[in-house]
């Protein structure tokens, strides 16, 4: 081998700068709203401004008369060309028209639309549509809605129950045919202490910075539909657009160009995507719709919104004997693609990181006159973590135990993995004490306690919070996803030795172009710059599922790794023929392909590639070319975990909380690019802290979203956070050959409960044991002042 060439560094595990950035920092990325197609028209929706009512009239005449208006559609018009929207879960669901027909059920539901030559004109024309309603009573409180009063939102769902009381946990037969409560009852009978608390994990608005957008282009000459959309999963979009337009999947090409964040809210296939496609097909014109932020607040799915009634049974030494978790999920007015499944993940993860002998959970999902919910970063798992961790914290406080020690006492031990939980999950691997100890060390927990006590002695309200989490990631086997749970990768060595690979995981900020290129560069021992990752276009990427559930690295990364392995093997066979050596002796090293022990024989990687495409002579039994694919389906999910610790101070005079410290130890298994992992954790922490401290979707009793803009919904700003302190433990997963678990959602899991626990700790002198989020200063001020804690 050449000794003068620089040695290529190994890239897996390195903080490689992102491949995506040069275009994005220069303003050269192409998002949906940046696209123009010749003949393109703009679509704008008229949305209802009441939460519940019967449509009595729609007058579109003024809009239709405007110069430049191409077409106007009401819900009834759209219903002629578009069936009610499908969902992806097996639960019964009321019909959901993309544009409302007769009845509106949440403020912001579309009732009509216009197509016009210009975006401003389209908005003017939509505003010129006059709709009158007979208002019906609105119901916004899910516990009230369960009584069927004051209104029934969907006629076949009498108590507004979308999903009526599903039990799970200890003693529940997998087919629900029998429920044995004896173990749970015994746990509570044997308990020396029981913690009972109603907790609200409130509604959030995902708010990706790029609102959604769609450009649908039906080409009659080709009988094909191209649809660009700000989506997390173009392949699912392709499937659904084909089905709803009566097309074969071969006729649809879905493209997720640059996507400006998703956070789960861009998984769903939306009304606007279906509508743009059917209107484009009917008019034979490219149709573009881009969401305003005001629209996004009501038209894009919300997240969380689960009430938990939690009972925890324990012994006085802190050993937990049993858990009951009664969940009521407010899913809003309709079932969307995955809506009904999200709270089931809260049930699945009720075990947390603990060896709890008996658990009973029940889940009820309720319709209300609000924007529908669906996935939002963490999607069901932050809710579980919040309920379990707040309960553990309350137990520690009740028993006057250190919050770390009560957790340590109940942890599932390393030798118990794989661990079958009471909830039916099989945790792949874990070493929870190691992460706990790492967090105690990283935070200098004893020092923090002393600092807190000192601050208290000075009269300040300072508190500490600690929370542990485990989440289900790397989704997952096909049994857990209606779309299929695999991912696809294809690796092609080009004739010049450059590598082009495609992945079905369509990123929106995750940096897959970089991490996957790192992997392949190492696998073939070629320069990073020689590897290109393509994604997001079903015309280029043959198959895929998408990016959600922290699955990119664990599932899509593995698919590429396996595809790369197949191509590497074939390339070794070509090299063996060319270099007259045994395939087993071929080595890929430093941009060269050579023979073990015979460095002089090595040829440049590109020379072997060229030979594979002009194989004279063609080695016996071989096909030309170097390209192969792999579908990877993991046999289990992955279960990353970690520990988050916070220190928080509450201003006695104003009640305003200030986050002083946030220390996170996360274990996501093997990391490909720690720089990108840090970014993922930072972002997750910000969203988890946002929920605990300032974010809340607030509806009034009429079903109006009061927090419908960034003036009223507190999206965290740079001034809201201290510098986060991160570290990691590494417990690889056996589920995939990379040992990677996934990290996209982790930050939202531990941060939220650890901050609320810190606030409770800060106010514990006033007898407080629980505070519902978010930590509104007024709420905290009242606690302080009602207990004479103000300085007045």
């Amino acid at each position, binding site marked *: 081998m050449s000794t003068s060439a620089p040695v290529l560094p190994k890239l897996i595990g390195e903080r490689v700068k992102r491949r995506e950035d040069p275009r994005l920092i220069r303003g050269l990325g192409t998002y949906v709203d940046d696209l123009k197609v010749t003949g393109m028209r703009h679509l704008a929706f008229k949305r209802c401004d009441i939460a519940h009512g019967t449509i009595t009239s729609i007058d579109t005449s003024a809009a239709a008369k405007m110069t430049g208006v191409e077409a106007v559609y009401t819900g009834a018009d759209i219903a002629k060309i578009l069936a009610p929207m499908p969902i992806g879960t097996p639960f019964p669901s009321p019909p959901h028209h993309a544009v409302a027909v007769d009845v509106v059920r949440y403020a912001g539901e579309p009732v009509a639309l216009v197509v016009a030559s210009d975006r401003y004109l389209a908005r003017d024309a939509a505003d010129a549509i006059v709709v009158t309603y007979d208002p019906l009573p609105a119901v916004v409180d899910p516990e009230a809605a369960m009584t069927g009063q004051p209104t029934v939102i969907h006629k076949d769902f009498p108590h507004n129950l979308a999903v009526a009381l599903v039990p799970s946990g200890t003693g529940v037969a997998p087919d629900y045919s029998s429920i044995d409560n004896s173990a749970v009852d015994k746990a509570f009978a044997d308990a020396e202490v029981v913690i009972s608390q109603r907790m609200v994990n409130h509604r959030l608005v995902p708010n990706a910075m790029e609102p959604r957008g769609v450009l649908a282009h039906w080409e009659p000459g080709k009988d094909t539909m191209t649809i660009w959309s700000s989506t997390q999963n173009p392949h699912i979009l392709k499937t659904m657009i084909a089905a709803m337009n009566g097309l074969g999947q071969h006729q649809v090409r879905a493209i997720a160009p640059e996507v400006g964040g998703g956070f789960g809210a861009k998984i769903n296939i939306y009304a606007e995507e279906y509508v743009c496609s059917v209107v484009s097909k009917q008019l034979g014109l490219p149709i573009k719709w881009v969401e305003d932020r005001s629209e996004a607040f009501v038209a894009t799915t919300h997240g969380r919104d689960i009430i938990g009634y939690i009972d925890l049974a324990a012994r006085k030494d802190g050993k937990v004997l049993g858990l009951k978790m009664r969940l009521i999920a407010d899913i809003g007015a309709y079932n969307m693609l995955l809506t009904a499944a999200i709270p089931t993940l809260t049930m699945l993860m009720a075990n947390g990181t603990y060896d709890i002998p008996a658990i009973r959970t029940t889940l009820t999902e309720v319709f209300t006159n609000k924007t529908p919910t669906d996935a939002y970063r963490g999607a069901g798992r932050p809710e579980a973590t919040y309920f379990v961790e707040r309960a553990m914290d309350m137990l520690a406080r009740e028993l006057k135990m250190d919050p770390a020690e009560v957790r340590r006492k109940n942890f599932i031990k390393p030798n118990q993995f794989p661990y079958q939980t009471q909830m039916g999950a099989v945790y792949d691997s874990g070493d929870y004490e190691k992460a706990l100890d790492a967090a105690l060390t990283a935070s200098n927990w004893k020092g923090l306690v002393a600092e807190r006590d000192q601050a208290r002695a000075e009269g300040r309200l300072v508190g500490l919070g600690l929370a542990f989490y485990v989440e289900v990631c790397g989704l997952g086997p096909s049994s857990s996803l209606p779309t299929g749970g695999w991912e696809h990768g294809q690796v092609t060595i080009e004739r010049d030795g450059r590598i082009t690979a495609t992945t079905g995981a369509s990123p929106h900020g995750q940096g897959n172009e970089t991490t996957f290129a790192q992997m392949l560069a190492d696998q073939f021992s070629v320069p990073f710059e020689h590897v290109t990752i393509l994604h997001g276009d079903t015309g280029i990427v043959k198959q895929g599922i998408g990016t959600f559930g922290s699955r990119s690295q664990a599932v899509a990364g593995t698919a590429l790794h396996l595809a790369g392995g197949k191509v590497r093997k074939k390339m070794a066979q070509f090299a063996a023929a060319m270099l007259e050596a045994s395939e087993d002796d071929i080595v890929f090293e430093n941009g060269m392909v050579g023979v073990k022990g015979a460095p002089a024989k090595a040829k440049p990687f590109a020379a072997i590639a060229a030979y594979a495409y002009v194989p004279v002579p063609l080695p016996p039994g071989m096909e030309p070319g170097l390209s192969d694919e792999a579908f990877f389906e993991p046999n289990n999910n992955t279960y990353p975990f970690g520990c988050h610790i916070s220190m928080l101070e509450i201003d006695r005079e104003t009640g305003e909380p200030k986050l002083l410290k946030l220390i996170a130890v996360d274990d996501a298994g093997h990391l490909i690019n720690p720089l990108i992992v840090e970014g993922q954790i930072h972002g997750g922490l910000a969203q988890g802290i946002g929920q605990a401290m300032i974010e809340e979707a607030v509806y009034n009793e009429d079903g109006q979203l009061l927090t419908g803009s960034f003036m009223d919904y507190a999206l965290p700003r*740079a001034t809201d956070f201290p510098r986060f302190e991160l570290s990691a433990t590494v417990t690889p997963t056996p589920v995939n050959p990379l040992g990677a678990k996934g990290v996209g959602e982790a930050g939202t899991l531990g941060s939220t409960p650890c901050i609320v626990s810190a606030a409770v700790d800060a106010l514990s002198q006033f007898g407080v044991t629980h505070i519902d989020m978010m930590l509104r200063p007024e709420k905290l001020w009242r606690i302080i002042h009602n207990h004479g804690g103000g300085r007045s």
Partner: protein
Amino acid sequence: MVPIAITVNGKLRKAHVEPRTLLVHFLREHLNLTGTHVGCDTSQCGACTVLVDGRSAKSCTLFAVQADGSEVTTVEGLAPEGQLHPVQQGFWEEHGLQCGYCTPGMIMSAVNLLKDNPAPSESQIREGIAGNLCRCTGYQHIVTAIQHAARHSGKAAR
């Protein structure tokens, strides 16, 4: 329709626009400078931040006619072709972006910040970008990116 003449990224651009045309739509739709983004409709998010006569401004809050006669710099005009501005370089080096949607506005605000204060403290940086929202990064790497830019700025950022 109203005639306007705006120098954008050093080039004089003349056009006739509706008086209600927002500067951001003039840049994006008329000039195809799509690096400047729209993230809200209440002037909160800062994705549309550009420099107008050297000062940062939210281009969704200005009508194009209000910028008549002005010099506008967008992210596309921040550095000569083939080069990166120190703030752009900082964002690349320190992973100051994920989805990239807020990034052009964030970069323009940071340029303005460093012009006023070439060596800001961490809290001054956080204050300085408080008018720009990012949902991906938790801001930490953005702060580090701006610190990187401040360290490497020489004359370019001033």
